[in-house]
């Protein structure tokens, strides 16, 4: 575990590594920014209280912190990822660091556990990925991520006092009817939500549909029918949020939830679009 003053000098980091040969540490990449003043990150902590620092290359700033390879090396990481409370603790630390950087400069947040063996490798990535990173920074500049999710409202359970079906065939007919009613409802919901998504997309710089969430993680029993992310400029944020919240207010069978603004995690992709 390391802690130290935020420093953008790689010589200082190298000296520190020579003084502490054990345990091996890696450079955890939190985010990439531009026009970031490293001094603005004084006191900001990354993973396990290690101070974040900046590696600069090609006019871009990589925000990194030191992590223990005993914890974040390939093997230990695989094991640790099976421990949900470990994942939660680290994810929250990662997010706090990303937010701190996002507060002071245009930022492309990184995914969890992007780790490099040296600062040279970090700088090399900045060099190699300069164009896609610049494109991503341009994309997210002046905008934030908003989440819009829709849940199926809990349906009233089939009346318990309904008379028992009179024949086996009648029972099956009832079951088939119930299945078909459910399918019809789902298909209607799908159409409504598809329309909503397209409308919201016109009010955003970019949009993405994400997979529905595991109920054991979300803690929500109602089926999730839509999980979408939108990149919305700060100026448009209020009206976007208002529209999304009210758009389906009349449809009682669907509940829409709007969250944000967040750092643009879903729009940080470096793949060519």
């Amino acid at each position, binding site marked *: 575990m390391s802690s130290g003053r935020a420093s953008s000098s790689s010589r200082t980091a190298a000296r520190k590594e020579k003084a502490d040969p054990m345990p091996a540490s890696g450079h955890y990449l939190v985010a990439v920014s531009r026009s970031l003043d490293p001094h603005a990150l004084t006191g900001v902590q990354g993973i396990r209280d290690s101070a974040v620092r900046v590696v600069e290359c090609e006019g871009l700033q990589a925000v990194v912190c030191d992590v223990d390879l005993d914890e974040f090396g390939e093997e230990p990481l695989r094991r640790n990822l099976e421990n949900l409370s470990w994942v939660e603790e680290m994810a929250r630390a990662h997010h706090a660091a990303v*937010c701190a950087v996002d507060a*002071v400069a245009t930022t492309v947040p990184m995914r969890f556990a992007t780790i490099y063996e040296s600062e040279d490798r970090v700088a090399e990535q900045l060099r190699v990925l300069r164009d896609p990173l610049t494109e991503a920074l341009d994309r997210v500049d002046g905008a934030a991520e908003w989440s819009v999710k829709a849940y199926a409202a809990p349906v009233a359970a089939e009346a318990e006092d309904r008379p028992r079906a009179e024949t086996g065939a009648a029972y099956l007919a009832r079951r088939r009817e119930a299945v078909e009613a459910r399918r019809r409802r789902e298909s209607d919901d799908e159409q409504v939500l598809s329309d909503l998504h397209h409308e919201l997309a016109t009010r955003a710089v970019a949009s993405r549909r994400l*997979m529905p969430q595991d109920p054991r*993680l979300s803690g929500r029993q109602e089926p999730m029918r839509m999980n979408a992310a939108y990149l919305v400029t700060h100026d448009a944020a209020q009206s976007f949020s208002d529209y999304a919240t009210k758009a389906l207010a009349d449809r009682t069978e669907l509940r829409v939830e709007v969250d944000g603004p967040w750092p643009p995690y879903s729009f940080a992709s470096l793949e060519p679009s």
Partner: protein
Amino acid sequence: MTLESTTRASAQISLVDLLDRLLGTGVVLVGDVVISLAGIDLVRVQLEALITSVRSELDQGEDAGTDEA
């Protein structure tokens, strides 16, 4: 302590939303059940494996034509 964030993008985020974004959307919890008694782990039930084999047997049943049960 981390700097108090004054970013416009600092609204609260739930763990599941964060995991979606940090680990990739569609994060799945694969469920095994460990049955323990008196504080001692005794049995691990791997439900996925069981359910998979039940499903594939049923799918085969579909092509089997009219059988006597």
